[in-house]
């Protein structure tokens, strides 16, 4: 507030570096830094469903604040994955913000891996996503993951339109105690009540839904 000029300068700096859910990143710089990510997450951020192997999550149109937090968690070892860890560690903190903002602005691509699932598996998946199963205290996914499970802020990522293989892996990881970085263990509490059949079902169903 010393001089109006200084205020103006600060304002224009702020404008050129928009705030995404509390993180400041530059999409253009992010595009450059993301070159190393394309081998797995693909140039358009679509990732890939790999049957029987390790799927790469779609990052396009995911929430920037959520992605940045995951990257920091990989870097700090709060979330572990051998393929992903080195890449989170090789970028600076600012670059992690930049790539997160970059991917969040790419248009969503379709989820893969659920189209050939059996009709009754998809039906079970749809039911768990939309109505849950309160008798087993499986809360409907949309109650947290937002309308149509397309996300709610930076804490509740969109899961609709994600690849089936990736969704299945994450839920199994929570159930088996391998993923543990969710705030207040809100996700763990649900995942550990699900059977492997439930998990296959929601993964298949969610992958057929639009992400946006």
């Amino acid at each position, binding site marked *: 507030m010393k001089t109006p000029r200084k205020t103006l300068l600060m304002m224009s700096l702020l404008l050129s570096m928009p705030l995404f859910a509390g993180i400041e990143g530059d999409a253009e710089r992010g595009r450059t830094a993301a070159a190393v990510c394309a081998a797995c997450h693909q140039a358009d951020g679509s990732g890939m469903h790999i049957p029987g192997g390790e799927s790469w999550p779609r990052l396009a149109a995911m929430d920037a604040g959520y992605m940045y937090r995951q990257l920091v968690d990989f870097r700090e070892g709060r979330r572990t994955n051998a393929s992903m860890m080195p890449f989170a560690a090789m970028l600076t903190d600012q670059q992690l913000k930049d790539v997160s903002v970059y991917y969040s602005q790419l248009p969503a691509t379709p989820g893969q891996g659920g189209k050939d699932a059996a009709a009754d598996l998809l039906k079970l998946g749809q039911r768990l996503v939309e109505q849950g199963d309160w008798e087993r205290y499986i*809360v409907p996914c949309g109650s*947290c993951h937002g*309308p149509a499970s397309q996300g709610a802020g930076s804490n509740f990522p969109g899961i609709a339109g994600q690849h089936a293989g990736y969704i299945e892996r994450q839920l199994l990881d929570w159930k088996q105690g391998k993923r543990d970085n969710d705030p207040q263990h809100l996700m*763990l509490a649900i995942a550990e*009540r699900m059977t492997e059949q439930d998990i296959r079902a929601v993964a298949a169903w969610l992958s057929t839904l639009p992400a946006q």
Partner: protein
Amino acid sequence: MKTNRFQWLLVGMLASCVILPVQAEQQLRFPVNPPQPREGQLLHTPPTMDDLEAARMHPELKRVIRRGHDLFMNTQQLRGKNVFNDMNCSSCHMGEGRMPFASPVWPAAVVLPNYRPKNDHVNNLEERIAGCFSYSMNGIPPEYGSDDMVALAAYHQWLAKGVPIYQLGDYYGRGYPIDQPSQEPSHERGHALYENNCAICHSSDGSGMRVKGETHFPAVWGDLSYNWGAGIIRNFTLAGFIHHNMPLGQPYTMSVQDAWDIAVYINSHERPQDPRYEGDVRATRARYLESFHKHGFYGTEQQGRLLGDHRNTGEKPILKPEVLRARTFTPQ
């Protein structure tokens, strides 16, 4: 004879009842352990919407019950007409109004008409539903006998299928029962607990979260929450709700004491005016003290502020819906 048949019924219902404990093949980190039924309590597992599809009933009746279910789950479709806050019926009556300890709604269908101290007269099911519209939804109830009201009532009645009517006894899981806390509830502890366990969804300012212009996480205080006449402003009711139901997906992780602490914290914030307000908050408190307000903070000073001392009705354009009137049941 009479007793025998009733007991038989009790046992029959017990057998068909799925009580919550989530059984574990693995050691669960968040087991769900609701209180067990006590001797003599009536147990009932309400039918599901699948049971409705399978039931032998007129298709038109099924359609109306489905409509009632839809209104119950997505009451926001009546926003601006009957609902003026961010609630659905299912925001408090969780799991489609079927869950024990989340005030399942079916008991109302079998114990009403009955005398209700809150309005000091005999109420039927539609009037009970109108009560939650007027206070919990900060709304203006659909008219008695209207399509929406009949559909909602039909859904309640369907959930009560098989329960003997007018057994004004003890129902397992009714309301939000809770024990007294061992220490005086503390606003300060409640504040810290709220920040650590609730704010991620309901936000630090209590306003919840809206996504794409729609309710996602409902508001726990402020203009878009329930008003000062809602049953859940009573500290014991809110504490009971929290203990049995929150944080979402992790019931019973807040101890009885935690739940009371958080309840007094939440309830020491502002919300829309009690529709029964007549211009003086202390007088309104006094008028409904015994039947209601002695259990809450309305019209008292908390954190240096007199609560409820305003004319704010939130988004609702009027203060008092017409249906909130006294009944005398005496010939004119």
